[in-house]
């Protein structure tokens, strides 16, 4: 690595050194309490898969280049030089971490490894070493934000093709259209994913609730966040924010995608509309008596996986349980659950990258946790979690029926 490249990467690191990050990098006492928090370490007990090790990869560079101590006594904190080998270590740290922040719950100081890994991911972009698929997907999302009239017409046509399937789930529409688009002053702007599984149940539920809603032209998923590019993260979110402001909606309800929800709700600052998870929207409809669910429609023993970005990092925890209590009387919690729930192992962009072998091995503890419930319906509320849990189900022969919460609700709708 030449001097110019090193300087460029260190400038990227410098750009992330705000007050919280500086404390995260300076305060660790290497107590090791976080070691057992990581699902990767619990499944594959190697030191490189611990939160403290991952953070140290960045911390040792920080000490070397941003602390006087690293210049006069580098061995004191094992400060390391930024070279190609260090970039390899950065990659391994960043993309073996799902950003679930379970370690943050264990750390006595509350060190946020995901934040520290955001330095790692940004440096990898600078070194042209980030997983290219994530950048490509982020760019595609941004490109869609510049959609012309023809693209919007194509989207509207594709959505109309879903109408029959939606009506099959709930026969009457709330408004004039089964899937309303561009509804000015709508109560809810629903932001889905690029897939009918994310649109059909939601449309059925909102129509059943007689909601004045509108489907967003944009998909919720934020690949900018997965790849750790703050500019692209902002641009991807901004498409939705601009649409919500243009339509003057009261609420943006984000589909079952943990990262999309957390970015929009907690990382984009205050907006002139409320940001909710679709899980919260469903819970509200039940609470207000706007939808009714039939407990006899879905048979089986339920359990629920709290998606990290929705629950521990997003604050949507009890709403899911409230919904499930209207779906079944046969529910068992995963152990541990809520803020201590094990990550599914698919976050942080790992699903999009592929990494099937690593994801299966590193989530062994998750598979064991699910198996121990003896349930047969595994509900969750995040696209990444759903994909990962479905693959774990197959890989470990768990015999589960992995379902989105919204899908279960749509199937249980009754008059």
């Amino acid at each position, binding site marked *: 690595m030449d001097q110019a490249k090193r300087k460029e990467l260190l400038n990227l690191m410098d750009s992330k050194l705000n007050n919280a990050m*500086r404390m995260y990098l300076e305060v660790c006492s290497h*107590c090791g309490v976080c070691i057992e928090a990581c699902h990767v370490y619990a499944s594959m007990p190697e030191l490189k898969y611990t939160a403290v090790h991952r953070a140290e990869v960045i911390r040792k560079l920080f000490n070397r280049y941003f602390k*006087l101590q690293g210049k006069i006594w580098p061995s004191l904190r094992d400060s390391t030089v930024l070279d190609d080998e260090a970039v390899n270590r950065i990659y391994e740290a960043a993309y073996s971490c799902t950003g679930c922040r379970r370690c943050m719950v264990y750390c006595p100081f509350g060190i946020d490894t995901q934040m520290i890994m955001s330095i790692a991911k940004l440096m990898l972009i600078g070194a042209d070493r980030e997983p290219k698929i994530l950048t490509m997907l982020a760019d595609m999302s941004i490109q869609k934000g510049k959609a012309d009239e023809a693209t919007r017409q194509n989207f509207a046509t594709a959505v109309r093709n879903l109408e029959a399937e939606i009506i099959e789930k709930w026969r009457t529409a709330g408004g004039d259209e089964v899937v309303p688009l561009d509804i000015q002053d709508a109560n809810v702007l629903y932001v889905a994913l690029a897939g009918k599984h994310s649109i059909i149940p939601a449309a059925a539920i909102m129509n059943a609730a007689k909601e004045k809603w509108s489907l967003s032209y944009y998909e919720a998923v934020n690949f900018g966040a997965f790849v750790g590019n703050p500019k692209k993260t902002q641009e991807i979110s901004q498409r939705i924010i601009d649409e919500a402001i243009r339509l003057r909606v009261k609420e943006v309800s984000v589909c079952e995608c943990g990262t999309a929800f957390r970015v929009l709700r907690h990382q984009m600052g205050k907006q002139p509309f409320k940001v909710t998870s679709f899980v919260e929207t469903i819970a509200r409809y039940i609470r207000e008596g706007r939808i009714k669910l039939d407990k006899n429609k879905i048979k089986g023993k339920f359990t629920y996986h709290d998606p990290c970005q929705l629950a521990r990092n997003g604050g949507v925890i009890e709403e899911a349980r409230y919904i499930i209590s209207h779906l079944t009387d046969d529910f068992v919690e995963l152990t541990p659950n809520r803020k201590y729930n094990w990550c599914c192992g698919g976050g942080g962009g790992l699903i999009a990258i592929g990494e099937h072998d690593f994801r299966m091995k590193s989530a062994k503890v998750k598979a064991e946790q699910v198996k121990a419930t003896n349930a047969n319906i595994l509900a969750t509320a995040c696209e990444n979690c759903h994909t990962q849990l479905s693959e774990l189900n197959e890989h470990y022969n768990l015999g589960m029926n992995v379902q989105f919460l919204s899908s279960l609700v749509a199937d249980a709708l009754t008059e």
Partner: protein
Amino acid sequence: MIDKIYYFIMVPMVYLAFAVFFLGILVRLIRLMVAPKQTTTLQIFPEKKPAWLYSLADAFFLPTIGKHKPLLWVFLMLYHVAFLLLIIGHLELIWDIKLLQVIPHKIFLGKGLIALTLTICLVFFLFRRFKSPYREISVTEDFFLLILLIFTVLFGGHMNWAYHWSEYGFDLSVTEFREYLSSMVKFKPALPSAITGSPHYIILVLHVLFANLFLIFFPFSKIMHSFFTIPLNKIRRG
């Protein structure tokens, strides 16, 4: 020559150590305050209100360690409480603090038990680091700080233990220590001849030497967690 070295450790180096300690901490805190602010929340849910109160509880009672590493928690709590009492004990060596005599006690506080508690805790922390996986995550600084503290506590404790637990006692009493320390506080340093003439002077010198080194190192070390723990826990609590 050795007298000059001893004098340097007992007087100029003490001032130097405190200057580095206070200025270093100030610089570190100012640098943090002028750094760009974290503008979005980094909190963990579910939240409990008031967040500031829970943050204080997190910082002072270490509940996450209590839940996951109960033995470490016991030693950490003992260590931190003993360290607080140690600071109070040293302040009482300088001045009479009537408020603290609500519970009547002799000076130095604790009759040697504080130093003993600290020693046991520090040895536990040190030996814990020899064990995998803690050995692999430890860096030189972790050992360096523990060794500095162990030496400081052992030499300081030695004087207190000899005074309280030996039938021969210790030839330096609170009176001599107070004379020395209060002269230092008044910036009119005086080393009483009872101290410099004592056969145990070297023990005091070594205690002060390691304490000086610890104070000098403090602002540049992970011990700054004593200032950062509350704000960091507040960030986590939201």
